[in-house]
């Protein structure tokens, strides 16, 4: 049994610290999970959106990708720079998503969560809508792109998850240190604010 005494007026109440904090702990944990899932899903969905943009870019520029070696230097650099920009954005989104997803799991599972739960539904839904809106001509374009430069497109698409995996493995230690720092800081602040309570 604890008795909490107000340091100013001396008013005393019965106090069960764990019981009294239970609703706050539940609220704080729910809020933490909500924020974490928000970041995880948003990052994954952004990665899915950009992955779709990369696919659309590849289909649109299929003739240039097929003849990449014979393109002018400026045109080639421009094309690769645009791809790199999209790929880097998707990789960062997926890596952030993977770090936020399921911190108690291995990084491989977290990456799978990021790509399967966050990115894949968005990419599939937008791709289906686009193919339907474009009709048969869009489907023919996709088939033509796969015939012209399917290998290169597959390589370009596979590079994004690979880059996200490398980024996630590189950023995970930094994220864990930041988390520990934030938890330590919060604990110190909490101890500072509850220092007036004494056990009777």
């Amino acid at each position, binding site marked *: 049994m604890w008795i909490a005494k107000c340091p100013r007026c001396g008013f005393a109440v019965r106090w069960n610290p764990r019981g009294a904090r239970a609703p706050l702990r539940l609220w704080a*944990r*729910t809020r933490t*999970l909500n924020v974490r*899932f928000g970041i*995880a899903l948003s990052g994954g969905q952004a990665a899915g959106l950009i992955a779709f943009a990369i696919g659309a870019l590849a289909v649109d520029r299929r003739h240039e990708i097929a003849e990449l070696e014979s393109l002018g230097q400026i045109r080639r650099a421009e094309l690769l720079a645009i791809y790199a920009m999209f790929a880097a954005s998707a990789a960062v989104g997926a890596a952030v998503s993977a770090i936020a*997803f*399921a*911190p*108690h*799991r291995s990084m491989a*599972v977290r990456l799978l*969560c990021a790509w399967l*739960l966050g990115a894949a*539904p968005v990419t*599939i*839904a937008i791709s*289906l*809508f686009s*193919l*339907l809106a474009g*009709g*048969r001509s869009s*489907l023919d374009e996709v088939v033509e792109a796969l015939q012209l430069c399917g290998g290169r497109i597959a390589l370009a698409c596979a590079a994004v998850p690979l880059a996200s995996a490398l980024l996630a493995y590189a950023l995970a230690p930094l994220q864990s240190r930041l988390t520990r720092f934030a938890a330590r800081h919060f604990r110190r602040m909490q101890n500072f604010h509850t220092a007036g309570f004494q056990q009777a």
Partner: protein
Amino acid sequence: MSTEQPTTPPNAASPRETLQGDRLCMQCLHPLVGRTIERDAGTGLLYVRCGECGTASALFEYPTATPWLNRAKSVIASTLAITAIIVLLALGGISGGFMAGASTEACESAAMDLSMTFRSSLDEQAKADTQIQSGYWTATHDAWLASAAGQDAVAKAQFSLPALSPFILLNALGTAIAAPFALFIGIALARQGPLRRMVYTALPVVLAAGVVLGMLSMRGNWIAGNSWGQVARDHYLMAYACISSAWLVAFTAATAAVGPSIAAFIARTILPPRDRRLVAWLWEWRGKTVPRD
């Protein structure tokens, strides 16, 4: 000398308690200290009556929240019921819409494919004849259709790539959109057995399929004509609609059956063990314990 005692009412004879401590009237905030504690004959509740406004205040609680709690229960229950009805209607509407859309789109593509096959079978002189054209709404060539080549083309056009592409795409899109609704219903019915979950979830899809098949069969009778589109509708429409209906019914039923397991698997994957108590109902509703690994 009389020995009779004066008759007094029993309440007046027994000493009565008075309220001690700080308590205010809920009506006028007048202090109730010193007021006589009385017992309500109907409910047995102890109460004191305010000396200023005469309002009775219960001693054990101020029961002001109870009506609001009852109203909140009604609001929550009606919200859940309305949500369930909307989800069921949405699932039926999505399924029916995509069934009809996929079937008619596939028929149009098959009709175009059929007419193009007919056109490619003509020689150059006949192709130049403006009386003979090919298209969805143009008239068919009955003699060619009755020939062996025509019958072969009719048989092949049903499962040709141009006809199957929109059919598969539209069914895939309908499946993708219906999946969250079927999962939601499956999870909401997690207390029921798998068979009952499947039946309840597939019911709106089956009803939608019945409506769509009925409408398509009537439409075939309404729009009569001698066009490639009519040929395609006569030969393929009901088959496409039946395939689409069967797929969507089977998919939604299967999704509802495994929905709680999928949700539990995802929760187990992404939630640490100590946080799984937040969604413990995912396991407890199915008579299982919350996994700790």
